[in-house]
């Protein structure tokens, strides 16, 4: 018996904002191995949604389904549907390259390109055809301001992105994504490789950004999920070799204070994971 995620029990209308991503009955396979089964979830706009669960529970795999990053791994496939603003992102004629511009991604390891800070942020706009210097300057500055990095780097724009500290590098990567004006920001454990002060800055940033960008964050840190997210989804792979599933999804406050599923409760109270 697959338990029905509680968000589907509660009327969605209760949650403000219309759904940006709607996922229905998603199965995901790495070759013959099924990694995810029956994922059904709505991610609403202008909110922060956290995916939590133990290691290997498929939350990062699911995240990469949302911008078709898994397409880069040979032998992967999905069943079920994922729509972004009503349009099927796996439908015919959808170019994953265009999709990834709209659905930006931040990785666990800060990954600035080996080029200057300016060129890092200008990389995306240049890809998509912006060539005028003045226009690029404006986009770069705006993106860095939004990523709360502008003050720290405005006088060293020509310096290599890799010379920044880990936390600054991560914000540089966020600025780089913001420069292409995505509708959604996927963050795959964005804080697990940076220092605590920087974690604070990235978390503040998420709160500021969510009015304009829908944010989905995968995190191992439950306090972080509780601090930054509006909604939380709990994923679990119950037995080795079996696909992971979405156990429970709902308002973060509710998930952390009165979870409906015993497994969610066990996880957030630290009984496993």
């Amino acid at each position: 018996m697959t338990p029905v995620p509680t968000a589907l029990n509660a009327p969605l209308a209760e949650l403000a904002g219309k759904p940006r991503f709607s996922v229905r009955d998603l199965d995901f396979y790495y070759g013959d191995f099924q990694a995810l089964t029956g994922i059904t979830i709505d991610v609403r706009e202008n909110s922060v949604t956290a995916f939590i669960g133990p290691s290997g529970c498929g939350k990062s795999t699911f995240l990469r389904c949302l911008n078709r990053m898994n397409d880069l791994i040979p032998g992967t496939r999905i069943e079920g549907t994922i729509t972004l603003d009503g349009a099927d992102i796996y439908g015919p004629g959808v170019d994953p390259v265009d999709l990834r511009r709209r659905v930006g991604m931040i990785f666990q390891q800060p990954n600035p390109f080996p080029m200057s800070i300016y060129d890092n942020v200008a990389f995306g706009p240049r890809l998509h055809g912006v060539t005028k210097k003045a226009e690029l300057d404006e986009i770069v500055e705006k993106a860095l301001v939004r990523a709360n990095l502008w003050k720290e780097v405005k006088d060293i724009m020509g310096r290599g992105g890799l010379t920044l500290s880990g936390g600054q590098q991560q914000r540089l990567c966020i600025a780089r994504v913001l420069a292409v004006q995505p509708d959604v920001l996927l963050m795959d454990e964005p804080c697990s490789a940076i220092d605590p002060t920087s974690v604070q800055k990235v978390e503040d940033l998420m709160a500021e950004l969510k009015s304009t960008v829908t944010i989905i964050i995968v995190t191992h840190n439950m306090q972080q999920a509780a601090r930054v997210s509006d909604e939380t989804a709990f994923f679990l792979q119950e037995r080795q070799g079996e696909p992971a599933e979405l156990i429970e999804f709902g308002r973060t406050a509710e998930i952390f204070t009165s979870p409906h599923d015993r497994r969610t409760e066990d996880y957030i109270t630290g009984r496993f994971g």
Partner: protein
Amino acid sequence: MGKRWINRIAVGILWACGLMTVVALGAVILYVFVRGIGQITPEFIFTKPHGVNAEGGIGPTIVATIYVTGLSMLIVTPVAVLAAVYLAEYAVQGRLVNAIRFAADTLASVPSIVMGLFGFAFFVEAMGLGFSVLSGALALSFLMLPIVMRATEEAIRAVPKYIRWGSYGLGASKWQTVSRIVLPAALPRILTGIILAMGRAVGETAVVIFTMGQAIYMPILPTDPGRSMTVHLYTLAMEGINIEAAYGTALLLMIMVLFFNLTARWLAARNRRLQG
């Protein structure tokens, strides 16, 4: 005999063997240096040989050597780099790709005299290019191709996955990612491979003697013949014409090869520093 003694003897043998490689290199360099240094004058470097004993300088052979090596590099780099990009990024890994790699490795181990013979039959004769810098460069490019290709392939594979993801995550296509992120990041290592291959080409004799000829001639056009420094050295020494000039040539040749090797090492070291 106690364990301690066996240990000491073993360490001693290892040390002696290690020392021998240094002594071998030192002896060659020192000997050539001592015999050749007296020859190295501006006149020797810049003027033409003259007279029956090839007195004077070796200018044209230096020009021919640099010319043929440079031209060969220009021919080989685009082909080798693009082939490596295909192998590392685009080709479906499997039998065909393994066959191409095996071919490249085998090409690298073909004796250079055989490559010279082939170059003579194919470029000089069949294609009618004659003894020329162009024939020499084409034949040398066969020699350099596998070196540059494998170096490029390894350089591309060494670019971390997560940097590529960053590019894909911004909506870059595969080609945009390869051309704007992967190749620039791999560039120092690719250059190292190219420079090492050039060092190899500068020192090559068998290939160029068959394809560029032995005429002492200042090559201007790629279709002109020329005599490389190695061929000049060979002729001077084997025919006992001017053994002192042979050592002078040898010393200059070693300096050039050493220069290529040191540049390659410097690039590699700088690259390690930059990428932390």
